[in-house]
Structures are given as C-alpha cells and as structure tokens.
C-alpha cells in the first residue's frame, strides 16, 4: 500500500516536470495545487477533509468578477477529482465532464471553461443553457432540410428540441435502424444530433453525475446521482439529508462563484461519500488526481509536439551536419520518448489495465514503439537523416491518434480481454512490429526519393539501406512473435490456435508479404531502390491488418475493435502512396537510364543469372 502510494506520487511529480517542460502554465498552476492537495491527503486520514486547509488561499476573490456568470472564474479542482461512476468504471468527474462536453459540443472545452465547471453548470442552472448554441450539428444539407441556418455549426437545446422536423426525422431514422434498413447521411447525422441532445438533456437533470456510492452490502454497486440519493439504501436517512445539504451548499457556492465555501462543501461531500464504505470507492485516492492531471496535461500531445520539434531540428541536422543541432534533435526525441512513456505508465496506473485494448491506445503505443525502436536503430545504424525519419513517423502516428475521432477515455475491458497477460504480450509485440514497419515505411520514402533523384550506389543511401533492412527484419521478428503469441492466446480463449479469422489471416498475409520481399531480396529481385519501394507497399498490408479488417471488412472474432469511419482519410493515404511509388519509380527508371545504369544497379546478387544465394553460400567455405 505504502509502496503503491509512493509510485503514484512519483508519477505526479514526473508529470509536473513534463508539464513544466511543455510550458503549459495554466495546467501547471492547477496541477501543482493538486499535487499539494494529494500530499495533504496522504498526510491525513482516509477522509478528504484534510484537503480543506490547502484550498483556502483561493478565497472569495473570484466571485467579484464582472464578466460572465459568477462561477466562470471559479477553480473547480476539488470537484474535478470527485469519484464518479460512468461506463462501469470509477473515474474522476473531470474525465466524465470532458467526455460529455466533447460529445455534445465536439470541442474539448466550452467557452474556455473547465469541462467540470460546464457540466456542473448544466446540472445546476439548466435554464441558462437552453438557448446556448452548443450542440454540434455541422451538416449543411441536414440543416437546410430541417429549415435551420445552414451556415451555423451549433444550435441550442431549445432550437433542436423545438424543431418538429428533426423530431420526426429522428423517429423515422430510429425506425429504419431497428428494421435494419439503410440510412441516408442526413438521417445518420440526425440520429447523432439527437443523441447529443439526449446527453445534454440528461446532463441538465444531473443524471450522469452518479457520485453517490452504493453501500457495502449492495451487490450491483450502482452509484446514483444526488437527486436519487434516497434509492441508495446502503446510506442512512441522516446521511442522505447531509448529502443533499452539502450538494446544495456546493450548488449555491458555485452559482455565486465563491471558491472557499465551494471547496469546503466539495471536500465535505467527498468525505461523506468515502465514509459510506463502498467496495468500489477508489482504494487509492491519488488515482483520481492522477487521472485528472493526465487529462489536463494530455501527455501524448506533449509527446508529439516534442517529436515534431525533433523532426524539424532533425531535418536541419540532415542538411547541416552540426554537432549541436544533431544533439538537440536527439534530446528532443528522447524527451518526447520520456513523456510518452510517462503517459502510458500513467494511463496503465489509473485505468488499472494495460492501455492496449482500444484503437486509440494501440495507436499511441505504436507511436511510442516507433520512437523506442527508432532510438535503438539509430544507435546501431548511424545515419544523418535517421532522427528526422524516426521523429517524423512517430509524430504522424501520434497526431493521427490525437486527431482521429477515437474513443480516448479508458473504458472497461471486454470479458475475453480480461484475466490474461496475453493481451499485453500479444498486442505489445504486434504493435512493436507495426512500429518497426512504419519506421521502415518512413525510411523507405526518404530512400526512394534519394535513389530516384540520384541512382547508383552512395554511402548515404547504402547506410539508409542497412537501416531499412534492419527495421524490416526487426518488424518481421516482432510480427512473427506477435502472431505466435496471439495463437497461444487463441488456444486459451477460443479453443483453437488458428482458425483463419480475418485478423489472423491478414496478419499472416502481412508477414508473408515482408517474407516475400526479404527472400526476393536474396534472390536478387530487389535492390536498394526495390527495398525502399517494397517497404512502402508492404506497409499497406499492415494498414489492412490493423485498420482494414476492423473498419472495412468488419468480420471475425476480433470484433471488440470493430468500428467505422476514416475510410476517406485512409483511402487518401493509400492513393497518395500509390502516386508516390509510381512517381519515384518513373523518375528512378528515367535517371538510371540517363546515367547508363541498370534499373536495379545495386542488387545484392551481382551475378543475376539465376544462381542464387544458396549456391553462392555453398562456395563460401571453400574460399575461407
């Protein structure tokens, strides 16, 4: 227990360091307060009351603000770390609030307010929000059909619920969906909009704020909002009254913008809840603070900002081989790696499960793996452009993870993913393989352009070729191991080690593709340029296995990863790659002919007469 707390606190300090590094002043101020409060909490007993002294300095000063509502300047950190039950997990209110605000508005924050403050204001002052245009629609055709201004992106709750055409359209869309009939794009959007309205409506009633824990004897452990506190039979009537009063005190202090009473009431209420003795109450109080800090710091964004900086400096280093520029690129990349590692550890810690279960988590891990493998590869194969390539690939992966509309909140695991270490082993190995292949793909682009512009052997491209080959070999080893670990897991979970499930099959296709290239290279069919192109082409197989099976084929047993969307972007990427390959190929052929070189001048097997490496190798010992 003590050790555990120690690591949690260490994590908090590390994150603070990272935040300081990124220079996010606002988050820093908030987070240092949290760290202070978490220390205070550690010193005190189980109750959160000990946090109270640390919060007084905020005072009532904020209340005197003239701009906006009274609560606008209120610091709601105490409320942010309140445990709440959502989607089967106990999380800080902050996480839930971010989810709700993002779901309704499509933005991370509304009006620059902390999402927690926004969600509390929704619940406590719903009438003030009914006419606020904050529900995301952004579908001009739909808006035109509904008789709404097509130029606006967001509409108010009152506008949407008062639109009879939207109501009837949604009803029809729901009917069609139940009958398994296809929906038009407008109908799909209408359903989405209606879902946002529904979420907002329940938020207006405080429904998602399930902060009242269940009593120790409650089998279902369903937490409830304060409005339903009397249904929480594990809590005595006196305590229930107490909870209602404290909630009311929080509300009035919040609406009046008085920080002191608000914090006091919040801490009191949290203490009351902790005293209920629910077995689902977070065993480690710091975990809530940890997750809140994670939410505020967004370590993976800091990570890609750092790798992006490393890429830019690395590009400079590629053209201008200055020792200090090179070192700066390295430092930035290593810092990015440290922040990413910290983020993954943090997420693992507060979610209590390996962050490898969703598309978002695996993408982040792939970005981390790209930096990790890249650092090792750069150390083994020194190359001037390596930092830029590694940082560029990692940045691209992490930006996709950050920007794509993927579920980024940690949720509960599917039953089949639980109770097993294979989830970590299998996904980790596979993702490291993908990382290596992604790096090879990135290096392949650089190499292809370099060779297309100036065919023929060179130190620069020779070194890059070795890097490329090493990355493909590493990827192949990881992918082979990952597939085999998956097979062992499948024999434990699905009763057979191999069943030609589409995901299994495509991972094998990917491996076979890279194997064909590696063997073809030895047969003399691929030279340096061929390997560069092959690393790009074969990466499309990785994409199909990783994305295509889940999002395009949508069949098979790996169904917990299935989803929709992104086809346009992925299709665009594939198209660009096709154009790129055709372009460099044409250029390479033309330039090679111009220089009087063979199309594949630097193939491995110089003889090229059908004799293969095996035969050649047979002769080798003779010469020794």
């Amino acid at each position, binding site marked *: 227990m003590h050790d555990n707390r120690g690591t949690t606190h260490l994590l908090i300090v590390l994150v603070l360091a990272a935040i300081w590094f990124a220079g996010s002043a606002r988050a820093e101020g908030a987070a240092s307060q949290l760290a202070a409060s978490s220390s205070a909490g550690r010193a005190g007993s189980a109750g959160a009351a000990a946090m109270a002294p640390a919060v007084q300095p905020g005072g009532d000063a904020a209340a005197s603000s003239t701009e906006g509502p009274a609560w606008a300047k209120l610091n709601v950190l105490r409320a942010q770390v309140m445990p709440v039950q959502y989607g089967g997990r106990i999380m800080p209110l902050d996480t839930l609030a971010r989810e709700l605000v993002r779901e309704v508005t499509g933005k991370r924050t509304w009006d620059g307010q902390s999402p927690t403050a926004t969600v509390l204001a929704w619940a406590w002052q719903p009438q003030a929000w009914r006419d606020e245009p904050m529900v995301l629609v952004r579908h001009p055709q739909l808006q035109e059909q509904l008789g709404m201004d097509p130029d606006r992106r967001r509409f108010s709750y009152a506008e949407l619920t008062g639109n009879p055409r939207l109501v009837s359209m949604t009803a029809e869309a729901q009917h069609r969906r139940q009958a398994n009939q296809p929906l038009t794009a407008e109908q799909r959007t209408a359903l989405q909009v209606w879902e946002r309205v529904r979420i907002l409506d329940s938020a207006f009633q405080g429904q998602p704020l399930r902060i009242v824990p269940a009593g120790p004897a409650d089998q279902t452990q369903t937490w409830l909002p304060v409005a339903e506190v009397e249904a929480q039979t594990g809590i005595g009537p006196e305590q229930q009254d107490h909870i209602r009063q404290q909630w009311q005190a929080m509300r009035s202090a919040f609406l009046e913008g008085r920080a002191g009473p608000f914090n006091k009431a919040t801490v009191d209420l949290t203490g009351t809840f902790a005293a209920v003795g629910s077995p689902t109450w977070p065993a480690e109080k710091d975990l809530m603070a940890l997750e809140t800090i994670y939410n505020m710091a967004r370590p993976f964004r800091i990570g890609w900002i750092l790798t992006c900086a490393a890429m830019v400096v690395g590009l400079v280093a590629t053209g201008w081989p200055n020792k200090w520029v090179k070192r700066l690129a390295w430092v930035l990349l290593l810092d990015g790696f440290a922040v990413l590692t910290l983020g993954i550890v943090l997420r693992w810690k507060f979610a209590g499960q390996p962050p490898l279960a969703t598309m978002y988590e695996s993408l982040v891990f792939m970005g981390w793996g790209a930096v990790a493998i890249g650092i090792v590869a750069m150390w083994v194969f020194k190359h001037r452009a390596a930092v830029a390539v590694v940082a560029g690939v990692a940045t691209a992966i992490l930006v996709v993870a950050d920007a794509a509309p993927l579920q980024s909140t940690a949720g*509960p695991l599917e039953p089949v993913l639980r109770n097993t270490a294979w989830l970590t082993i299998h996904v980790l190995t596979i993702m490291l393989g993908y990382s290596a292949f992604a790096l090879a793909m990135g290096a392949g682009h650089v190499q292809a352009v370099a060779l297309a512009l100036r065919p023929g052997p060179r130190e620069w491209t020779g070194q890059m*070729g070795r890097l490329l080959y090493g990355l493909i070999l590493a990827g192949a080893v990881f992918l082979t191991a990952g597939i085999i670990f998956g097979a062992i897991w499948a024999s434990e979970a699905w009763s057979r*080690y191999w069943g030609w499930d589409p995901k299994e099959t495509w991972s094998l296709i990917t491996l076979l593709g890279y194997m*064909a290239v590696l063997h073809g290279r030895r047969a003399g069919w691929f030279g340096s340029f061929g390997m560069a192109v092959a690393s790009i082409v074969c990466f499309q197989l990785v994409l199909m296995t990783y994305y295509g099976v889940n999002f395009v084929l949508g069949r098979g047993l790996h169904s917990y990863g299935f989803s929709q969307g992104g086809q346009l972007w992925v299709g665009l990427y594939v198209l660009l790659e096709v154009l790129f390959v055709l372009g460099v190929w044409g250029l390479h052929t033309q330039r090679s002919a111009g220089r009087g070189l063979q199309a594949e001048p630097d193939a491995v097997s110089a003889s090229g007469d059908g004799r293969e*490496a095996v035969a050649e190798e047979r002769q080798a010992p003779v010469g020794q």
Partner: protein
Amino acid sequence: MKTSYRSILRTLGSLRLAVVILGSLAVVLAGATIYESVYGTQAAQQDIYGATWFAALLVLLAVNVAAATLLRWPWRLRHVGFVVTHAGILVILGGCLMSNQLGTIGRLVLVEGGSDNRVVLDDWVIRAAADEAQADAAEMAVGRPPRPGRTAAIDVAGRSHHVQVLRYIPDAEVRQQVVEGGPGDPAGVLVEVQAAGQSWPQWLLVDDPGPWSVRMPGFTLAAASAYTPAESTGGKGTIVAAVDGRRFRIDVAEALAGPVAVAGGEMTVRVSEYFEHARVQGRQLREDPTAPSNPVVVLEVTQGDVTETRHVFAQFGDIRAMHGAQTKIPVDLTLEHPRAATEITLVPGPDGWILYEQDGGELVQQSPMRPDEPVALGKMPMTLVLRQVLPRARTTSVVIPRQSNQGDPQPAVQVEVTGGDRPERTWLLWGRPEAVGDGGLRLVLQAREVALPFEVRLEAFEIEQYPGTARPAMFRSTVTVLDPQGSAEPVHAKIEMNRPLAYGGWSFFQNSYTTAGGRQVSILAASKDPGKWVVFLGSALLVLGTVILALQRLVPRSGRRGGGDRAPAFCGSQAARQPEAIC
C-alpha cells in the same frame, strides 16, 4: 545421378520458388478474406481453407522449406538461425496436419442443472437409421454449407443405399401447394381477391375446412359441392354475458323491451339500440340496409349506482372493451346473431363455377364466374376473379427459401436416394427425420456429434456485470465433470473467459450463452487437439530462429573472408555485393 538429384533439390528449394509460393499464398489468403466477407465464414472455411488445393499449396511450401534446409547440409554455426527458423516452420506445418487429422473441436451445449456428453461439431451430416430408435445408424458427410453433387453409399440394416445431395437451401420453409390431382380428389379453383387496393391469390378446394378456404369472423370464402341456403331464422339474436366465469343468456328482443336482470339480480342489461346492418358514419352507428350484415346492440349495463353504455358487435365483439378501454362493470359481453355473416360460396357446375353471395341470411347474388372476368360482390367492397380451375386438385408440400427472416435459419437439403425399388427424391429439413423408400430408411440432416467418455453438468451460469452498467464483465460456468471410468469423485470447476478447464484430454472454454425455456444455457467450446503441442514447439523454434537469424544478419561478423578493411557485410549495402554475403 547425384547431380540431377541435387538439381531437383535445388529447384525445389530455390529462393525464387519461395518468393512465388509466399506471394501466391498471400494473394490467395487476401482473396479468401474477401470471399469470406461475401459468402460467409463457413463457405470460406470449406471452399478455400479446407480445400485440397489449399492444402497442396501448404505442402509445396513445406517441400520448399525442407529442400532449402537440406541444401545447406552439412550445417555450420552460421546456419543456426536459418535452420532453426525453417525447422520451426516445418514443425508448425506438421503440427497443423496432426491437429487437422487427430483433433476435434465442437460445442458442448449445457442447460443449467442439466448434464450432457455430446459435442456438436461444425460440419454437417445426413444420419441414416433403420428405425426410430436410431439403432444401426450410419452417417454421410455433406459439408457445410452442403455441396450439391456430393454422393455416398449408406449401409443400413443390411441394405445399401446411394444418397446424393441435389440442392441446398440455407434457410427453408415448407409451403403447401395445390397441384393437379387424381381420381377421388376434389375440384379446386384459384381466385384472385381484390380489396382495399390490393389483391392476392387464393386457392379454394371443394368442401375443404382447412387452409383452402377463408373463414373469418363475419366472413367466409369457400368452395362447396352445392349451395346450401341459410335457414331463414327470425329473431334478433342472443346476448351472452359472462360474469366471474358464469354465463347468462339474454334474448335481445326481450332486453329491447326493458331491463333484464342478470347474475341473480347483481346487474341489469337493457338494449337501447339494435342494428342489423350497422355502419359507422362519423362517430355514429347508422342502420344501412345496403351495407353488409353487421348486427350490433347498444347496451346499458347497470350495477348498483353505476350505469355504463357498451357497444357489442356480433362480428367483432365488445368493441371498446377489446381495445383496452376501461370498463367499470366487470362483465364480458358477446352477441350471437343468426344473420351475422357474409358467406361467399363457389360451386362447380356443368357449365362452370357459380358464385353465391349470402348476407344476413339472404342470397344477395348468384353469378356465373368466367375466367379472368371480375365479379364484384354486392355487399362487400371486394372483387373476385377466376384465374384457374382444376377438376381434380390435391395439395402437396414444397420446400422453398423462406420469405420472411424470422427466427433461426432452417437449412434444408434435397437428396436422391437410390437403392429401393426406384430412385426417390426428398427434402430433409434441419433436425427433422424423414422416412424414405418403403419406410426402411430414416434420414436426418444434423451436425456431426461426438460423445465424450464422461458427462459435464452445468451447475450455474452467471454473467458478471461492470458495476452500475449492463455491460458484461465476465461469463462464468460452474460445472461438474462426472466420469464413470475415471476418478470416483466428481470434478468441480469454474470455466470463464481465458480460464478453460482441461479434463481427460479435452479442454472446455466459455464460448457463448443463450436462454431456453426460461433457463440459462451455457455454450462451451470443447476441443481435443494433440497437434497443439507440436505447433507450440514449432512456434518456439520459429521465434528463437528468427531472433538468431536477425542478429546474424545484422551483427557484423569479423574474420570472414573480405571482412578486413571494409564495412561489415550488411545486407542492402554496397559492401554486400560480394557473393558470399549471407543476407
């Protein structure tokens, strides 16, 4: 001689063949996943992954790998990675072959509180038996999905039968059809009924009480050998009042005159209005003699201080009570009326069919029906058209693809059985035994089953949920293994995801669940696979080998010929152009 043997080996183990095999395997597999998403998992399993040519491709891969490994004989230290990797592949392929030949995988379906030992496999068979007790049964594999054209000889009770699969319907239903009959069969007529802007065909067989006539409350459409006029009964009908299960009959004429006491004076009933051809206009009932017969009584029911008005239709009952309106007085009312119905009767005659329309006990019209000439009914807003006439008609059942998709799919195969007096064709619906020939053979389409040498009893099945949600967190079956041969003590175990139970060479996995008859049903996957361990051994070799191989390829080897002043012989580099480069 030795040279030619070596050259064959060199061809078989050549890198180019390897690249061709790897490439074609990748293309075939990519095609297979697309095939699967179009035709379904079972079709892909059978037509591609289970096909002989696919196995041949894998054998070719094994031959190539084996030849390439043998070519390097005698093996040296630098061959370690290569040999271990490729030996791993061979061992894996060998293990797969073992799994394929010796392994069994299926499902064990357990009802809570019940026990079973039958493992249901994925493939389908036609099971043949001589009698209902299924003694002396023989099986014929039909594939899944069944492949038309597949034949097998089945020997049952000393007689040999030849069974051939003719057709397969993934989801079938049985429909009754009218066809031309023989002597003794009744005449039949096909009419097209047109009403309310729609039309539908209806076969009518003479004097048929069953599906070949239309009998609804207040309306019948049927064929008969002769027209029987309704008995001309007078009277206004009888009200039947049911109170607490007791039934009281009230004459309408009497109740029209004044209140009639019912149920020992508990309540009184008075008829305030009476209609024979009621028609709803606006929200009012009107008597309309041109309308079809539709007797209605409007009643005033009094119980104590409460008086209630009820509308009771002879054809449709107590209309408001039936549509869920609250009634204050607990009495069920029905009206029995002698002239309630409209009856349409089609009668075959020497000069063709005649239509009789009878309504409210009176003959409304009597019209001859000529092919394709519509006959409008006098009282009903309906038109009948004669479409087809059969002097002798009988019904037969046909199996066709199901029109509606409700419930579980019901597969069916049509087979031809030779071996009796003459070849016989019959449809086999999933799980329904069908007698063939002169009753000496019973065939049933079912999944192949394997009996475990022990029984498994499901004590409980539970779904654990994430707190506060309906989202399942874990599925768990608590089972007891009852082994008559093994240990005397029954074995208790909990099976959940990622926690299988191993017993007697078999492994049991939590697969899925359902409910049947209000009881929980847990579906376990059951497998017995001796090849598994061989595959795992091969896998270990493969992983080890690839790691060694990758290190050998990447780490510079000093002291090799040409090493000297040159950069290490990395692959892909200029330096690697020497023939001895090992990459």
